[in-house]
């Protein structure tokens, strides 16, 4: 075949070209018929064709055909049509026959194929090629040696590795770079499975490190590090030695820089101050002048990421990055921009000198680079340059994708917080882009930014509100319209000229869909409720919505007009209903209504349903409710299921009244023990407490009979008497059964609610066959006891978390008489206010009001933090607490607390909860 060369060279050039031209034309037609040489390949057909591999004649005479078949097969796999395990095995056996051929290209393809399928193949099948591969490892051809090692690395285990270890070690120090690299990379793969074997190669690897080949240096260094990884001292020594200039390869130098950085970051002391640290830093700085850009960048990135690096140390690194900014290569510009953006977060001053270069990058054709440039400039820019910057950005903003715009919006928001005086330009800029084209996420980002700035910078409130109003005049996103209408409703009435917003809101009522109309009606209502001067005119507008086609809009308008009153002289409580948010969440209301139904379904008395007769349901914290919202998809939310449902099913408890409140389950055992017990405390509205024990048996060959809990009081007060005990009749494995205890509080001790008991689980054990559930052995079983954690009834179990429903905290506080007030002062062992507030709230079992559980920045600076709590104490006593917490140098955390309730005794009991 190779004789073709001699023939063609014998022809004259022109005739040859002519000849070939003809052939080319002929082929062009065929090209057009068949767009891809691999089009319409069928896996089954190719697999069928692969059977020729067993034909020795084909293998030796047409190696091209064989390697084409392999290519076709791998192409099919690349296109996503994976081979099944049996298919792989079949082909694999065929391919092993190809070792008969001496054709090097075919051999290369065979190596490649084995590597590709080694993982999908049965390991036992793969083994059969090891002898062929081991033979190639001793071949005189460098490329055979190199490739066979790479293939072997993919398939052998520690024992087999032992057998060929000798050859691999030889290969590592082979004078051919490819053989050496292949052996080193193979070592890096093998060290995962056979660390002990590979660690024995340390001398060879060390020698390879000094190879003249750059890639060999790189591979040797990475393997050497892997080998010594767990010996920190050896690593430090190795790195220190190499920094003195043994390595020329750029890749190896990059790797060395990473190792140095890892050592510097891993040490707890201030490494940069120490001698070794300084030496390491010097190496990094030296690397900034390396011939390879990869090394320069790696070193610069390393320097800026060092812990405790100072601005003057950053200088050289920033300087080289600055040079990269004007490189013609996009990769370099992006790399430098990314690094500078990172520096700008912590040390914007260090990057300022690059501002000019970065400004020219705003118009970079690569949008990632441009976005990085802008966000960095927004961080480093001075107050005076804001206007100019904004001008540059506005032309740029129209050209980039929404995701980049969002990044810019976030950066502008931060810039505005930094330079509040520039709010007019910055918010104006944001508002401009509200009017431009853009998707929902982009618009939402702008609206969120503007709203956040309204909260942070009060001066922007009025103008921003108008910007937003203009935006909803032409807003296609219902969610944003309703959000803004709500905002206008709550902020508009207190603005300087509230009447100007009415037009914007009313336009929504005329022009929008039902959801937005409803939101607009609510917003109008708020204007009418708060501004008597506007009430008459707004009512006229609201009246038009009475005939709206949508139920919700009509309902809202009707409700508003009714509460505002026909004569428009509304009384305050009714108007408050329009303004105040509903006093409990919907899930909580649903829960309370359920309880009401269950409790009153059993009793004959007809009790009117209103806010005060609703049973108290504990408020869940915002975190808990958010969590339940996210889990709600998978499980029915536990909050909506009343914990007392089971209790009401027990006829024994019918005479004991209604449940005042129930606690959440408290574990009395570890969750992995043989018997798992938890308790729910139900506080009844008379002097009873019912303890509901949930018992789970986790032992398969035991049946528990007559399981009950015994309690023994730990003090002599005898606050509670056990009046009834209901045991769980039978407990099979894995089933949770209930056992009950009824306690009666001795009313002579009316001021004491807390008590502690030693608890024990008592039962009889029957041994059963876990498979058939038949009882084995003694029919009566034997008695057994199992100690549990103490059961505690505390005062705060009697406290229901309940918000002040109908008014705000302050007026509720003032409506309670000062005679029922108790003042206390405590010193608490807390290091910070957050944990103190959480602990006090938990200790009292009350609901924080006015968001006072959140510590603001102001209070951190030595000003006391005010905490407002409210709750309902058994059965219907409203309790309010005002507390002040202060961190004091000497006394620790000081808590001053005032408790008010209509009953002085109860105030005292509540105050005593803090111990």
């Amino acid at each position, binding site marked *: 075949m190779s004789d073709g060369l001699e023939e063609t060279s014998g022809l004259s050039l022109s005739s040859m070209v002519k000849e070939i031209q003809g052939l080319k034309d002929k082929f062009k037609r065929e090209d057009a018929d068949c767009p891809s040489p691999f089009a319409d390949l069928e896996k089954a057909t190719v697999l069928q064709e692969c059977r020729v591999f067993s034909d020795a004649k084909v293998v030796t005479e047409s190696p091209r055909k064989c390697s*084409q078949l392999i290519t076709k097969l791998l192409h099919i796999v690349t296109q996503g049509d994976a081979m099944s395990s049996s298919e792989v095995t079949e082909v694999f056996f065929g391919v092993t026959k190809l070792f008969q051929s001496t054709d090097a290209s075919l051999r290369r393809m065979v190596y490649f194929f084995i590597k590709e399928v080694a993982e999908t193949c049965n390991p036992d099948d793969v083994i059969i090629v090891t002898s062929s591969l081991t033979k190639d490892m001793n071949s005189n051809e460098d490329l055979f040696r190199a490739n066979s090692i790479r293939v072997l690395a993919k398939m052998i285990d520690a024992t087999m590795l032992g057998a060929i270890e000798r050859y691999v070690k030889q290969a590592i120090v082979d004078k051919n770079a490819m053989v050496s690299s292949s052996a080193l990379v193979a070592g890096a793969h093998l060290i995962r499975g056979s660390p002990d074997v590979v660690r024995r190669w340390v001398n060879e690897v060390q020698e390879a490190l000094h190879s003249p080949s750059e890639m060999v240096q790189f591979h040797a260094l990475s393997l050497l590090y892997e080998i010594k990884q767990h010996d920190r001292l050896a690593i430090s020594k190795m790195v220190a030695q190499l920094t003195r200039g043994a390595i020329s390869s750029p890749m190896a130098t990059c790797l060395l820089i990473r190792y140095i950085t890892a050592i510097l970051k891993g040490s707890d002391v201030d490494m940069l101050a120490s001698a070794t640290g300084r030496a390491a830093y010097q190496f990094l700085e030296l690397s900034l002048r390396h011939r390879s850009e990869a090394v320069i*960048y790696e070193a610069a990135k390393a320097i800026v990421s060092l812990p405790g690096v100072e601005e003057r140390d950053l200088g050289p690194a920033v300087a080289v990055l600055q040079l990269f900014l004007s490189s013609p290569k*996009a990769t370099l510009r992006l790399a430098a921009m990314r690094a500078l953006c990172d520096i700008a977060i912590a040390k914007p001053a260090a990057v300022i000198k690059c501002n000019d270069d970065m400004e020219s990058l705003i118009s970079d054709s690569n949008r*990632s680079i441009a976005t990085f440039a802008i966000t960095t400039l927004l961080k480093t820019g001075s107050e005076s340059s804001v206007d100019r910057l904004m001008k540059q950005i506005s032309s740029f903003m129209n050209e980039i994708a929404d995701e980049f715009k969002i990044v810019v919006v976030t950066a502008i928001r931060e810039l505005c917080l930094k330079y509040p005086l520039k709010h007019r330009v910055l918010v104006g800029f944001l508002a401009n882009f509200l009017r431009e084209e853009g998707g929902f996420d982009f618009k939402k980002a702008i609206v969120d930014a503007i709203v956040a700035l309204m909260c942070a910078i009060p001066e922007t409130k009025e103008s921003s509100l108008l910007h937003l109003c203009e935006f909803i005049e032409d807003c296609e996103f219902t969610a944003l319209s309703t959000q803004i209408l709500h905002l206008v409703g709550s902020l508009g009435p207190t603005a300087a000229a509230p009447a100007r917003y009415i037009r914007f809101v009313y336009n929504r009522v005329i022009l929008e869909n039902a959801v937005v109309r409803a939101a607009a009606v609510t917003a109008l209502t708020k204007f009418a409720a708060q501004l008597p001067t506007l009430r008459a005119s707004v009512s006229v507008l609201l009246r038009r919505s009475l005939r709206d086609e949508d139920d919700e809009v009509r309902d809202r308008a009707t409700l508003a007009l009714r509460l505002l009153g026909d004569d428009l002289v509304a009384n305050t409580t009714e108007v408050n209903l329009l303004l105040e948010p509903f006093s409990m969440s919907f899930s909580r209301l649903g829960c309370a209504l359920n309880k009401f139904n269950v409790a009153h379904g059993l009793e004959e008395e007809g009790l009117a349903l209103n806010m005060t007769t609703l049973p108290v349901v504990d408020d869940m914290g915002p975190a808990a409710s958010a969590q339940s919202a996210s889990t709600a998809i998978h499980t029915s939310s536990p909050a909506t299921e009343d914990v007392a449902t089971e209790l009401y099913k027990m006829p024994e408890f019918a005479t004991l009244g209604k449940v005042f409140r129930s606690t959440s389950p408290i574990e009395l055992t570890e969750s992995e023990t043989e018997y798992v017990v938890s308790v729910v405390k139900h506080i009844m509205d008379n002097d009873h407490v019912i303890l509901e024990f949930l018992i789970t048996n986790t032992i398969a060959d035991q049946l528990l009979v007559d399981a009950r809990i015994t309690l023994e009081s730990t003090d002599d007060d005898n606050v509670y008497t056990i009046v009834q005990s209901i045991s769980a009749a039978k407990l099979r494995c894995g089933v949770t059964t209930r056992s009950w205890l009824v306690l009666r509080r001795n009313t002579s001790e009316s001021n004491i609610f807390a008590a502690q008991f030693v608890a024990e689980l008592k039962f009889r054990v029957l041994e059963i066959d876990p498979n058939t559930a038949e009882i084995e052995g003694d029919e009566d079983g034997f008695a057994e006891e199992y100690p549990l954690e103490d059961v505690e009834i505390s005062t705060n179990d009697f406290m229901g978390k309940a918000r002040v429903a109908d008014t705000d905290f302050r007026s509720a506080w003032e409506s309670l008489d000062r005679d029922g007030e108790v003042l206390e002062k405590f010193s608490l062992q807390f290091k910070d206010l957050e944990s103190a507030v959480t602990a006090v709230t938990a200790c009292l079992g009350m609901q924080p009001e006015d968001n006072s559980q959140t510590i603001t920045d102001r209070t951190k600076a030595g000003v006391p933090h005010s905490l407002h709590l409210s709750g309902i104490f058994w059965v219907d006593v409203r309790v309010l607490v005002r507390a002040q917490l202060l961190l004091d140098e000497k006394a620790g955390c000081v808590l001053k607390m005032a408790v008010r309730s209509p009953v002085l005794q109860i105030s005292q009991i509540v105050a005593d909860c803090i111990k």
Partner: protein
Amino acid sequence: MSKFASGDTLVPSVLAVLLLDSEGNRIIAKYYQGFLGTGLEKSKFEAKLFKKTKNTNTARSDADVIMLDNTIAIFRCGADTRFYVLGSAEENEIILNLVLDGLFEALNTLLRGQLESRALLENLETVMLAVDELVDGGMILETDPQSITSRVLMRGVEGTQPITDMSMSQAIATAKDQLFKSEYLRPHTGALNPPPLQV
């Protein structure tokens, strides 16, 4: 693929090498270190990557870069093809660029500058082997185009049959090449023998 270079390692590494045609179809798709588990994830990612880069008109001489889903993709364009090398977002993009350049230049030599999708598919075997010589399980094996070229061709091994499924235009180019060489200097042994002309 082996679990080599997963996560905690500091060694510069490659997550994927992709060659796509003008419609975003795969010519080569090699993923390493368990990057993107299922086939579906991979094709989704490729589609996204292609969508983001198909309109970038970079010159053939220079690489461009894009950040996508916590990865960095460096890419270069052939006539109707896109060559991508992907690394993690923390990776040194200049090293990734070196890897891509190594592949691109090697293929450019191997396919005689014919980097359109048809030529790549016709010489798929060469392309596959070039990628295999470039990266081994995520570890960068070689970035020097010349070394890659000669290793793919198994240059220097006796009994080498050339990989000769070149298209006709390539055949002409090769023939011309050989012709000049035969007139001025004899071709060195084993190097790129011409294709058989009897088709």
